[in-house]
C-alpha cells in the first residue's frame, strides 16, 4: 500500500525540518523528487544524503515570476510529468497585531499563501491533462485554532485550507485530489531552542504527551499522495497528538 514507485513529486521547502522528512518519506515510497528551496547548498547536501536520482530546483517563493516558472522547471527535470505537488515551504514573522508591520503581513501571505496558489495553478494544468494528480499542502493546527502573535501566519494557513477545498471541487472530476496536512507541535530546531519549562507547558496540552516528529507528517503526506487515497479530497488531516480534535 501507498507505493509511489514511478511517480514524481515537487516538494517546496525541501531542506527544512518537516520538508526534508517529507522528501525522505516520499523517496522511501519510491517517488522521484524535485527538491525546491532557497538555499542551494543545503538542498545539494540534503539530496546527497537521500541518494537516488532526484533533481534540485531552487526558487525564491517571494518572487512571483520565479514561482510561476517552478512547476515547468520541475516537470522538465522530472522527465515530463508531475504527479505530486507538496506545498510545504512557509515562513513566520510573528508579532502582536497592534505591532505588526505591513511588510510582516505581506511577506507571510506572499510566501505561504500566494506561492501555494501559483504552484497549484501551474500544477493543476499539468495534472488535469494527465487525468491524475495529488496536491498536498502543509497547513497548521493554528490555521484552524488561531494563535496570538501569529495573525499573519494563521491567516495564511487558514487561507490554504479554504483554497484547497475550492480546488478540490474544481479538479475532482479530473482525477486530481487536493488535501492539507495540519501539523501540531513537531520537534525541530525551533522547538529545541525552547526551555524545558516551555516544552513541559506545551507537552501538557498534548494528550499524546510529547511533540511529533517530521516522520509523522511525512507518513500523512505519503498517504494522501498515494493512489489509494484517490477518493479523499478537500480534507485536512490533523497530525497533532490529539492537541486539537477538529
Amino acid at each position, binding site marked *: 500500500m501507498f507505493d509511489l514507485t514511478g511517480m514524481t513529486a515537487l516538494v517546496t521547502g525541501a531542506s527544512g525540518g518537516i520538508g526534508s522528512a517529507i522528501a525522505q518519506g516520499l523517496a522511501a515510497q519510491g517517488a522521484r523528487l524535485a527538491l525546491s528551496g532557497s538555499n542551494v547548498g543545503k538542498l545539494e547536501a540534503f539530496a546527497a544524503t537521500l541518494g537516488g536520482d532526484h533533481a534540485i530546483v531552487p526558487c525564491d517563493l517571494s518572487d512571483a515570476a520565479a514561482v510561476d516558472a517552478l512547476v515547468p522547471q520541475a516537470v522538465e527535470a522530472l522527465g515530463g510529468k508531475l504527479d505530486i505537488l507538496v506545498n510545504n515551504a512557509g515562513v513566520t514573522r510573528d508579532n502582536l497585531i497592534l505591532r505588526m508591520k505591513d511588510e510582516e503581513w505581506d511577506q507571510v501571505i506572499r510566501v505561504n499563501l500566494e506561492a501555494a496558489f501559483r504552484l497549484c495553478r501551474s500544477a493543476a494544468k499539468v495534472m*488535469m*491533462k494527465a487525468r491524475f494528480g495529488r496536491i498536498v499542502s502543509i497547513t497548521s493546527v493554528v490555521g484552524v485554532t488561531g494563535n496570538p502573535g501569529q495573525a499573519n501566519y494563521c491567516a495564511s494557513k487558514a487561507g490554504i485550507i479554504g483554497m484547497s477545498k475550492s480546488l478540490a471541487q474544481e479538479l475532482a*472530476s*479530473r482525477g486530481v485530489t487536493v488535501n492539507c496536512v495540519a501539523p501540531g507541535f513537531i520537534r525541530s530546531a525551533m522547538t529545541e531552542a525552547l526551555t524545558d519549562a516551555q516544552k513541559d507547558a506545551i507537552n501538557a496540552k498534548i494528550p499524546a504527551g510529547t511533540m511529533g516528529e517530521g516522520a509523522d507528517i511525512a507518513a500523512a503526506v505519503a498517504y494522501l499522495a498515494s493512489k489509494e487515497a484517490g477518493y479523499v479530497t478537500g480534507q485536512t488531516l490533523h497530525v497533532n497528538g490529539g492537541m486539537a480534535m477538529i
Partner: protein
Amino acid sequence: MSETADRVKKIVIEHLGVEADKVTEDASFIDDLGADSLDIVELVMAFEEEFGVEIPDDAAEKIGTVKDAIDYINSKQ
C-alpha cells in the same frame, strides 16, 4: 468545410464525448454540448496544443460556440 473546422470538431467530439452530428458550428459548448466551465478551459488548452496558438483568457472567455473557436483560430493563422 475547412480543415480547421474539422480539427476543432474532432477535439470537441473526443473531449466532450458527444455525437458528431450534434457538433454543428452553431452549437454552444455549454447549452448544447453539456460542457461545464472546466471543460471549456480544457478545450481551450487542447486547441492551443493542436494549433500552436496562444488563446489569452479574455479571448477564451468569448468562445461560446464551435464557430467562435474556429473563427478565433483562423484569425490567428
